[in-house]
């Protein structure tokens, strides 16, 4: 069971805006903190993990719930 500290609603935003919102949120998070983001743009399923790989963050969970994509991210050291 993960303990999510922050939640971000990126529904109806088209990529790359969900990535930008995640980036802006995570820039002020410290390593180990978790963010849950909800998106509706299916492109977020590839873009957010790609952005996380580049920036040293970890995807803990990603699932589709009733047409919405819910991604849980753990901030890495560069966050």
């Amino acid at each position: 069971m993960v303990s999510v500290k922050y939640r971000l609603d990126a529904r109806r935003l088209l990529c790359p805006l969900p990535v930008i919102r995640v980036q802006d949120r995570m820039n002020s998070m410290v390593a180990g903190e978790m963010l849950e983001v909800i998106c509706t743009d299916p492109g977020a399923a590839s873009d957010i993990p790609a952005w996380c790989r580049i920036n040293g963050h970890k995807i803990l969970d990603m699932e589709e719930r009733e047409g919405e994509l819910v991604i849980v991210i753990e901030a890495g050291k560069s966050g």
Partner: protein
Amino acid sequence: MTIRRRALALISGGLDSLLAARVVMEQGIHVEGINFYTGFCVEGHTHAIRKKDRTRPRRNNALWVAEELGIRLHIVDVSEQYKNVVINPKHGYGANLNPCLDCKCFMVGKAVEWIEKQGFDFIITGEVIGQRPMSQRRDTMRIVVRESGVGERLLRPLCAKNLSPTLPEQKGWVDRDKLFGFSGRSRKPQMALARRFGLTDYAQPAGGCCFLTDEAYSRKLADLWQARGSREYELDDIMLLKVGRHLRPRPHFKLIIGREEGENNFLQGYRHQFIQLRINSHPGPLTLIDGEVTPDDCGLAARIAARFSAGRDAEEVEMLLLDRDGSEQLLRVAPLPVAEIRPEWYL
């Protein structure tokens, strides 16, 4: 102790910026990427909206480039500040509503702000002299340097040998002999360099990355400005120009008609901003009415919407008109005969 110099690369997602960053990384410079979101980026939006496009593999090319290079990428939302570039371009537009030179000055200027804040040493772009008619000529490249405030901190590694030495070359941070002297519209030198680096899966070199270079899109934006009587826009406006068929049957209103399920779903999200027409009796599009309309206008809009439904040949099509305040009205209309839909209504 030698200081490891740091450079910021403007990453569009195309081949040139990828190569430019890679060439500088080869010289031991620490490189990070920056990508600007203007609202007009072609990247991904149509794919995200249109259901039929979702079966194609998809990636954000700027992120792909950064991953390929193994560098961090900073994506910056400049959409609000960018309005002034689009609305009042000092150097004018290109073939469509593309303010390429002002855009380049703006982006390099934003990159200057970023490196000064983060303590980076210089900026890299993938520009090549003669590659683009407006923003990548020797004279306009000088304008970019002057108006962005970048001075000698802008290195264009792919055509550096055709230009005067910049700060990183003068200081010996990069070896000018290892840079290139590409020029002109040919893509062959870039493709050869890509092969040398073992890059094969890059985005199509000729692919445009901005809707403003698209003739049909620019026509719709020009129509929006003319109809409103002012050259302004919000992010939602420019998103909607990417979606559906746009028809303006009267000067004071236009219709945005979904072309498939994905677009209909997207347009449905605008229920509180526009009057909507939803066809009940037959499969058909969701239609938004943009403008202040009379009941007669709504009747015409309904007949046009019916024409684009599966009931186009029926005597009557039934639909729901949903007003912005949530009120509903049932309409039964005869689809407008195809001969009465004037070609000039299509934007």
